[in-house]
């Protein structure tokens, strides 16, 4: 296996000194005494991979080579050199080099910002795996820790891929204590199906693509011509739309009347106008991000006003069993406490063909 490996040397530095992110603030972080930490985390992963026959393509110095040397990793080559302080431009350039060399996967050590820079270049064409080192990691593409990252890579013969959200957090707002997030895109992320003794999970559509097909097969049976459907973001919803026969925007909110597309990438205003004309409206959404937000992260167009008009009982929440297994609770943060609490303690999530799961709802405290 050929891995494109890069470290964002400054990732995580802002966090330790209370900056809630390091983008554009590296000098400030340093003056507050921040120490780099990502290189060490990258080294942990590499030290577990050094005898695995993996070939590493990486960047010079702190962007990768140092971690490889410290880990005692021998089979590596430097394909990108940077000078001075590394920037997001260096990340993008390095990724372009990796792609030219036909790597199998890109492994990076950083946070949400690094993930965005990489995704911009590779899209869903090359799989990504994050070793967590950033301040903010709302994206669902990170292994739990450096050790798990190495385990996933060592299990390459049984690896499956799922689509995971890369989340864009507004750093300015974040420093003010507000969490404003946008869905930035989807990456292909490897994971190892759980091998628990109760062989049950083997059967439970560990295969994400199959699970999405099953969910879609069920939802399609419910589509009625007299009903307006507001479709949220994400690849599960995309699969549903495909099965209905419409092309959906991956990150936007689209609207169908029956099986006909009536609005693409609709904003709150358009949604409200369309809802006002209809008597029967359903919202179909999927949880977003590593934490499993069903509202308030990534699809703010589906606002409290929209939800109040449609009614919570007309919301259909869908998610694959894998996604649900990673999110013990679902979060609701619509921005309106009355909407949040209206969900109650539990909600039903469609997770397969005629199958649902009961999930606990967690309301973040404001």
């Amino acid at each position, binding site marked *: 296996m050929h891995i494109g490996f890069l470290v964002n040397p400054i990732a995580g530095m802002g966090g330790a000194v209370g900056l809630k992110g390091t983008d554009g603030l590296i000098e400030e972080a340093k003056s507050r005494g921040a120490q780099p930490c990502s290189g060490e985390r990258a080294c942990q992963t590499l030290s577990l991979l050094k005898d695995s026959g993996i070939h590493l393509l990486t960047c010079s110095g702190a962007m990768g080579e140092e971690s490889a040397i410290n880990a005692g990793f021998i089979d590596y080559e430097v394909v990108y050199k940077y000078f001075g302080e590394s920037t997001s431009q260096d990340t993008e350039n390095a990724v372009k080099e990796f792609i030219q060399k036909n790597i199998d996967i890109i492994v990076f050590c950083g946070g949400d910002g690094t993930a965005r820079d990489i995704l911009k270049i590779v899209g869903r064409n090359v799989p990504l795996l994050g070793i967590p080192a950033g301040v903010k990691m709302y994206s669902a593409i990170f292994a739990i820790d450096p050790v798990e990252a190495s385990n996933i890579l060592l299990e390459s013969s049984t690896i499956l891929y799922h689509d995971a959200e890369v989340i864009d957090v507004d750093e300015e707002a974040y420093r003010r204590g507000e969490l404003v997030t946008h869905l930035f895109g989807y990456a292909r992320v490897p994971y190892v199906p759980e091998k628990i003794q109760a062989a049950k999970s083997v*059967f*439970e559509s560990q295969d994400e693509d199959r699970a999405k097909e099953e969910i879609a097969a069920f939802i399609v049976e419910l589509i009625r011509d007299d009903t307006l459907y507001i479709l949220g973001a994400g690849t599960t919803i995309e699969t549903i739309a495909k099965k209905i026969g419409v092309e959906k925007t991956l990150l936007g909110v689209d609207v169908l009347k029956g099986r006909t597309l009536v609005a693409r990438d609709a904003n709150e205003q358009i949604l409200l106008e369309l809802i006002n004309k209809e008597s029967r409206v359903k919202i179909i959404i999927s949880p977003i991000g590593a934490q499993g937000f069903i509202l308030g992260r990534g699809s703010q167009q589906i606002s409290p006003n929209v939800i109040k008009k449609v009614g919570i009982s007309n919301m259909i929440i869908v998610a694959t069993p894998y996604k649900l297994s990673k999110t013990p609770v679902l979060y609701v943060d619509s921005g309106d406490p009355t909407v949040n609490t209206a969900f109650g303690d539990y909600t039903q999530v469609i997770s397969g063909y005629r199958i649902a799961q009961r999930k606990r709802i967690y309301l973040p405290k404001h």
Partner: protein
Amino acid sequence: MKTKIILDEEQMPKKWYNIQADLRTPLDPVLHPKTQKPVTPDDLSVIFPMELIKQEVSQQRFIDIPEEVRDILRLWRPSPLYRAERLEKFLKTPAKIYFKWEGVSPPGSHKPNTSVPQAYYNMKEGITRIATETGAGQWGSALAFATSLFGLKCTVYMVRSSYAQKPYRKSMMQVWGAECIPSPSVKTQSGKAALEKDPDTTGSLGLAISEAVEDAATHNDTNYSLGSVLNHVCMHQTVIGIEAREQLAMVDEYPDVIIGCVGGGSNFAGISFPFAGDMITGKHPNVKLIAVEPSACPTLTKGLYAYDFGDVAGLAPILKMYTLGHDFIPPAIHAGGLRYHGDSPIVSKLVHERVMEAVAYHQSEVFEAAQTFARTEGIIVAPETAHAVKATIDEAIKCKKTGEAKVILFNNSGHGNFDMSAYDAFYQGKLVDYEYPADLIKESLAHLPKI
């Protein structure tokens, strides 16, 4: 106070109780899957022995248990009735909790109460092999046990998810000389069709029934045997309730609440029918009979009371019952024995007429209850039985609130010694609380045969 109330061997019932004699109105007829006309004994004789067909439709209140059958039942019957005093104390409830312990049978559940007579009647009528299906493996091992005693061959189609989950159930069947095949299999047309449609299917009880019925119908020496649902199966299980009534009478009690878990309905029928009879005939009109099912497969609480096929392929007779639709494949919960889309027509009718009631629970709360039971009474129950335990605890807690000293009886239908992987999943926090999206599925029930 006695912990165990034990009957002498000779007090074991000599007759089964047939509740059909006491129903307010007769059952709706069973229909032929092809003609959709009422089935005749001849139709059924392709897969069942005549004696069981007679029992299926009999209106006679009591039916003799053959001496050869009683001889074998004596290996573990009469089963003990326990007072669950430690559980009562733990719950601080004024209620008195009793349970009938059916896990003492060799295969470990209530199932041999019917597998033994079924094997016996087949043997009497010259059949040499029996085909059947099994969900969690309890029925399959019970029939393997019974057929081995009568020198019959036995083929068990075991739902694939359970085959993988519970390998030791398969081993038990082998010990008793039975052949155990994961379903769907390539041995039958129904199995092949299912695999073609979806090679990775988990299988379902409804599908395994199709395979076993097809096997029996296409082999002259082979009959089919069903471990639940049918009237004669429910009747064979009434030894449980008849004994329990005797045992409670020995300590001057009569139950106020009777509880059992329901997949196809036979263990609940076994404990409840004798008391339901008392209720219908006015002897004890104020008993509460509670059927407990999983939220993942809530046939009685969310299903439709209608005619439906008993199996996926539409080979088995059409029954009037509560159903989630014969093409519904329930999620792979650990209580595999409760994953059936339909229910006993008699239990269904009694729930429909409100003689009985039904409740549904999620997996994790059910395992919580089973843990409480194991830590107070010692017995680690099967995941299926754990549903009855959960309802029992809830009823006892209600008594605590109202201060009523009700007598609660539940059927402890089997042990969970082969279900440790399920308990493991519980302790790892990996149990998924499946539910049935009833509102969204209503449309799928449009696939029921139109009658």
